[in-house]
């Protein structure tokens, strides 16, 4: 079964969960999906767990009773048995890098920018940092904050940091030369 189909099933069916169960399930989904577990296995097991949780919910049970008081420990136990991702997403990161390279090129055109092209390549790297970090951040915070909240904060801080670095580099260039 295709990964996307599986993912869609879990998203649709998880709407049938009550509030407590939904929160629990969302946190474990987030944690497992952002880990180094193979995507296919992650989606398959999440579908199975959801199926079980829905049955249990019908009988008045809740997620804490089924998976335990500590969702993180449960996930770790599960993940230890699952195969890991075969490749890091280098192609994905390369595409993002190129994308930001293009954006940087246009930013250079802005008034007040004294950038020459030699900084562009370096600068585009800084945009990659938030991309790397965001997934890690979501993973580590799966049980504390909602993914949307984390993404929002990450986006804001990443924008602030990259713009600051951009101007700093710009300043350095003016100072050095």
């Amino acid at each position, binding site marked *: 079964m295709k990964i996307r189909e599986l993912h869609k099933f879990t998203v649709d069916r998880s709407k049938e969960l009550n509030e407590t169960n939904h929160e629990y399930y969302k946190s474990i989904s987030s944690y497992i999906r952002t880990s180094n577990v193979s995507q296919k296995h992650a989606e*398959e097991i999440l579908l*199975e767990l959801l199926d*079980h949780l829905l*049955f249990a919910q019908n009988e008045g049970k809740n997620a804490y009773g089924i*998976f*335990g008081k500590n969702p993180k420990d449960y996930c770790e136990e*599960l993940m230890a*048995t*699952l195969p890991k991702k075969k490749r890091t997403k280098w192609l994905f990161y390369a595409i993002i890098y190129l994308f930001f390279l293009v954006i940087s090129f246009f930013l250079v055109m802005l008034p007040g920018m004294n950038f020459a092209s030699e900084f562009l390549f370096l600068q585009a790297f800084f945009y990659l940092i938030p991309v790397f970090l965001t997934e890690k951040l979501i993973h580590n915070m799966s049980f504390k904050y909602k993914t949307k909240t984390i993404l929002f904060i990450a986006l804001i801080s990443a924008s602030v940091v990259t713009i600051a670095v951009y101007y700093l580099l710009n300043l350095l260039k003016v100072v050095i030369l």
Partner: protein
Amino acid sequence: MSDMSQMLKGILEGCILSVISKKEVYGYELSEKLKNEGFLEVSEGSIYPLLSRMQRDGWIEGNFKDSPQGPKRKYYVLTHEGKEQLLNFESRWIELRSSVDSILKKGGLI
């Protein structure tokens, strides 16, 4: 993890293999059957890491099949290796049970 809890896990795995050997089952069905036989202290969710490990070791095979609600459900069957593991477990359990029974008979409080 302590040795006791490892042993309990091993026993639980053997029981899971036994249930699967009778008829192919999906997760929830399996946990219900185990509960019916008295495994009440075991949380329902604890079967999934075990099922996952047994699949990885080739003792069972999981196949997704259509369910009445639509989304596919994973059904488990024993593999050849799984059947051997089950036989191993059954003979080890018989030995263990008779040892424990014999010790309890000689010294227990009941």
